[in-house]
């Protein structure tokens, strides 16, 4: 049953990907196909990583309302970008070599996330209110610092900064796709390797420990993997907070299964399908009149509110 549903999800992704690649293909076919393939790879990597990371994060946090982005990833990304523009100026920032910039951002985001998750989980933990509050407070602090710094920027510098702050799937440096893809594929493989342990971890800390799982070490490893996936995605296209929540919720609804060995690939496939479908619609139907990231965030935010309200009622 679960395998069949996974197969359907994979077929849907293949279908929308083929549509994205080949629909309305005119002019220099090789050149356009190459461009579309690079964009498709980015959409699939980011969507899959967001979905899988959210499933893993929700399990170790014992809460299906959470998404790793809620602890202030977007604010840190804005802060890093602002500081970079401030330090280097608009010309320096715009001419930064893409790969070192991407690697530095990924490293900083990963370190921040691992430290934050580690502290939150060690000090009491799987308390959703505390985690959200911490995320909100840290996010507010970083946004305030970034806002202050932005006031000191020249208008031309501010314009360059604004362009880099919204998640964008349209302009991806092809130099980044391979390293990001490798990192995300390795992280996804580690998630699948941890899947059976995640099943046990979902029973809770004490129960998992009495079943022989080295829970604290296991959770820390899971959080590092989540941090890597979210950080690579964010550094690649910008912050997309609620995509993972959408993908994870749809994966739970579609599979009706507790096993991570099927939930992780399902969320990855659904996350990728959402982005590829959305980008296809925006590029081919709406003629790039809006931003996919904004719509995904809007839909994901509504889902988050719906889940919170349903739980509280």
């Amino acid at each position, binding site marked *: 049953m679960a395998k069949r549903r996974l197969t359907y999800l994979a077929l849907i992704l293949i279908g929308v990907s083929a549509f994205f690649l080949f629909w309305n293909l005119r002019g220099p076919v090789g050149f356009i196909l190459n461009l579309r393939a690079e964009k498709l790879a980015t959409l699939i990597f980011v969507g899959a990583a967001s979905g899988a990371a959210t499933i893993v994060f929700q399990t170790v946090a014992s809460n299906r309302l959470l998404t790793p982005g809620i602890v202030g990833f977007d604010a840190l990304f804005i802060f890093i970008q602002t500081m970079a523009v401030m330090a280097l100026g608009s010309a320096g920032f715009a001419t930064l070599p893409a790969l070192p910039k991407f690697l530095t951002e990924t490293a900083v985001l990963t370190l921040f996330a691992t430290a934050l998750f580690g502290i939150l989980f060690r000090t009491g933990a799987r308390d959703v209110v505390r985690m959200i509050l911490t995320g909100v407070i840290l996010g507010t602090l970083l946004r305030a610092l970034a806002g202050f710094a932005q006031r000191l920027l020249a208008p031309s510098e501010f314009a360059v900064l604004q362009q880099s702050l919204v998640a964008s799937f349209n302009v991806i440096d092809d130099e980044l796709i391979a390293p990001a893809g490798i990192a995300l594929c390795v992280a996804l493989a580690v998630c699948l390797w941890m899947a059976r342990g995640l099943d046990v971890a979902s029973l809770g800390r004490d129960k998992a420990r*009495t*079943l022989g799982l080295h829970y604290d070490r296991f959770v820390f490893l899971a959080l590092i993997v989540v941090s890597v996936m979210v950080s690579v995605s964010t550094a690649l296209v910008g912050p997309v907070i609620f995509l993972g929540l959408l993908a994870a919720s749809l994966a739970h609804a579609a599979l009706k299964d507790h096993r991570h060995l099927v939930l992780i690939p399902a969320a990855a496939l659904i996350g990728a399908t959402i982005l590829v479908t959305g980008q296809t619609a925006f590029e081919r139907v709406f003629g790039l009149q809006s931003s996919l990231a904004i719509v995904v965030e809007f839909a994901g935010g509504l889902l988050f509110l719906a889940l919170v309200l349903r739980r509280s009622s």
Partner: protein
Amino acid sequence: MITVSNLTLRRGGSTVLDQIDLQIPDKGIVAIIGPNGAGKSTLLHSLAGLQKPDSGTVEIGGGDIHNMKEQDRAKVLSFLTQSQGAVPRLSVRDLISFGRWPHHRGRPTAEDRAIIDDAIDRFDLNALESREVESLSGGQKQRAYIAMAYAQSTPWMFLDEPLAALDPKYTRDIMDRLRGLKDRSILIVLHDLSVAANHADWVIGLKGGSVHCAGAWDEVITSETLSDLYEVRLRLTEVENQKTVIWG
């Protein structure tokens, strides 16, 4: 046998367990009783290696439980916690299968499946095995979780208040089934003294983090002991061959 030596545990400035020395015999049912806040659950968690003491040792299965690797410990004792985490979509069979995790680490063998079938049979869960755990009644759910602990095939089963919020029918059902597990040693935290009186072979009475009394039930428990333990007048009596504890 579990040998506890000088076990002391402090939390937030207060002593929760105070220099506990015990030798707990294996085979049969050992009840931990005592008033609220006496340290019963903390003692059970500490004996299971889930809470590290400030000092003292717990020798079980040939080594100190707090120095054992998680995986080795899971082959010595199974533990039923007071509250169970809710896992949506988890079937009763899948829940019981988790009991075999320490042995197969996610890749069950034919032997594991046979043990899971035996646990399902023994706890009369055949009709429920495909049901989601979350859809079961309190008593059925508790039976499923105890079956999971049983499937772990450990010499010791630790159960932390497994009868909490259960009606008399399920209480009796679960205690009768536990009584039937002749090859296991069961350490159980109980609040219902009549249940303890009728089912426990051995008893540990805790008060203020210290051992108030310990030994074979018939040898150490009297009306006076219970009254002193709970600081209220209690009487141990018999009605139609059933021991019962009443106020008095």
